[in-house]
């Protein structure tokens, strides 16, 4: 478990991070969203013990980053926005060096390296020189390096920057898989679609302050009062639209096709279920009834002013 409590860092008169607090549980993937210069990297570097906070602290599995940074370092995998790959080593040698630095027992090192290479799909490149890898592969190698000591917290600073769409998609899938493995992951980015797909919690930071944070759905609901429901029926979409108009929680309906409509809805999950029940009991043959996915971009634009430090 990670508890971040009132982290603050100033560089002279510039307050880069101001009283940031949040909590992560195992398996949480926390998207750290903010414009360039908002304070994401400074926060991540403080959590990585690479920068001492002026005040506040973070406690990772009972270890305080300010009191016992050496223990915290053993539990952290940090991937900066630069890869930091040595130019004179093979892929396995690179991982072997960091496994040694993190004191992975010698007898386990080979199997650990094989496992992380398999996880990041670089087994075929085991004996290639690290510098011969493409940017996407280097990114995966960098992630493999973070994993050699089996950390409980991964700090990924702009991990998808500069990657092509395929490499980006592969990286997203990999991070989601690591979340399923129970790791706490903090991913910073200013590219919102990058995070929306796989983060279950997000924090939006602006000028060093956390504007909002929590579960994606909760944030979206707190900001967007109405939800958009997509409804598809086999026939009679216009009748269904008229039928739904005025029902409890329905703010408006829009016909989007001969068999599809959208409903602007104010209410919780139970009320949605009731609405679906009413539709079906009225004889409409519903083949799709879903809530539109949370739109992080809209939320971000709504809660931030665009100001930077």
């Amino acid at each position: 478990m990670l508890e971040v409590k009132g982290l603050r860092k100033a560089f002279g008169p510039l307050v880069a991070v101001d009283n940031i607090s949040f909590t992560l549980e195992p398996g949480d993937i926390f998207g750290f969203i903010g414009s360039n210069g908002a304070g994401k990297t400074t926060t991540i570097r403080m959590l990585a013990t690479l920068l001492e906070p002026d005040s506040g602290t973070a406690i990772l599995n009972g270890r305080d980053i300010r009191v016992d940074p050496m223990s915290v370092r053993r539990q952290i995998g940090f991937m900066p926005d630069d890869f930091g790959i040595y130019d004179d080593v093979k892929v396995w040698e690179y991982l072997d060096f960091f496994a040694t630095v993190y004191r992975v027992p010698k007898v386990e090192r080979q199997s650990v390296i094989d496992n992380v290479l398999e996880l990041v799909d670089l087994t075929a490149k085991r004996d290639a020189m690290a510098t011969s890898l493409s940017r996407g592969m280097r990114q995966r190698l960098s992630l493999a390096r973070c994993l050699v000591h089996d950390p409980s917290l991964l700090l990924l600073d702009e991990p998808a920057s500069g990657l092509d769409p395929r490499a980006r998609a592969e990286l997203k899938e990999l991070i989601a898989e690591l979340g399923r493995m129970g790791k706490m992951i903090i991913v910073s980015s200013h590219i919102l679609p990058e995070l929306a797909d796989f983060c279950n919690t997000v924090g939006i930071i602006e000028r060093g302050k956390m504007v909002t944070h929590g579960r994606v759905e909760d944030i979206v609901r707190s900001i967007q009062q109405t939800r958009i429901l997509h409804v598809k029926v086999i026939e009679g979409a216009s009748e269904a639209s008229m039928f739904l108009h005025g029902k409890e929680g329905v703010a408006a309906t829009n016909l989007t096709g001969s068999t599809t409509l959208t409903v602007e809805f104010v209410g919780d999950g139970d009320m949605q279920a009731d609405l679906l029940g009413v539709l079906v009991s009225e004889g409409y043959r519903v083949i799709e009834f879903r809530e539109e996915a949370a739109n992080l971009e809209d939320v971000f634009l709504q809660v931030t002013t665009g100001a930077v430090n």
Partner: protein
Amino acid sequence: MGGHRQVRHVVRDLFTENPCLPKSLSSFSRSLRIGTWPASTAIVAVIILLVYACLVALAVQSVTWFEPSIFLYGMLLISILLVAAVLYSGLAGEREKKSLDLLLVAPVTGAQIVAAKLTKAFLPLVASILALMVPAIVIGMMRIVKGQPAFIDNVNFPIALAGALGLTLSANVLVAGVAVYMSALNKTMSSALTATIGCLFALYVVIAVLVSAMAPISKDLVDTLLAYHPFVAMSSLLSQNARFAGLSVGFSSVFHIAVGAGLLWASVRALETERKKGGRASA
């Protein structure tokens, strides 16, 4: 006993159980694989080796008038250049490649990182000492066999060799300290190289010239002030009439070891400060 245990603990922490060492050691072995060298580097290395072999052969042939001093001066000069050349890039190179953060975020101390960097200088230092000490010993022995003193100035041969070795090792402690400290302070390898060369030039050339300029005032004062200089100390050691040979070698060695150790400690502090303040790596 307590002190002995403490020394063992430090040695274990910095060397025998230092997890940063494998990278240094593997880069040693890799640098020795000629296959990875550019062809031009290999050709230059072969030419240097041939010239060296010819010089040694010529010296051995000429033992009646040739003496070992030149090799001992050469040992001091070449080892200093090699150690500086190997070490200036250590931390600045990590910073330039953006890999220093990866070490600073790992559970290793600044002292372990610096110690690992120092091991890179071990091989060049030993190689330069062997390459120049061995011919010096051979030539000295041959002169003795031919009934001549090992040195023209009839200096005690074993003492001169031991003194020269001591001066070389102590001078390299300071050079290592300067190179590593400059590497710790600079963001790029080129600026670290410039700073290292500048410091060594100031220490061994500029200060020596300035002090020598005081000769008209007092020659004894100049001799005393220049005693720190390893080449002056070597000169005292290898000349029969030197008044300050022992003092000069002792002072020079202590000066170099003390300043070198101080700079290495400052390098460790600089790394630890960088870890806390986010310093140069987060530029």
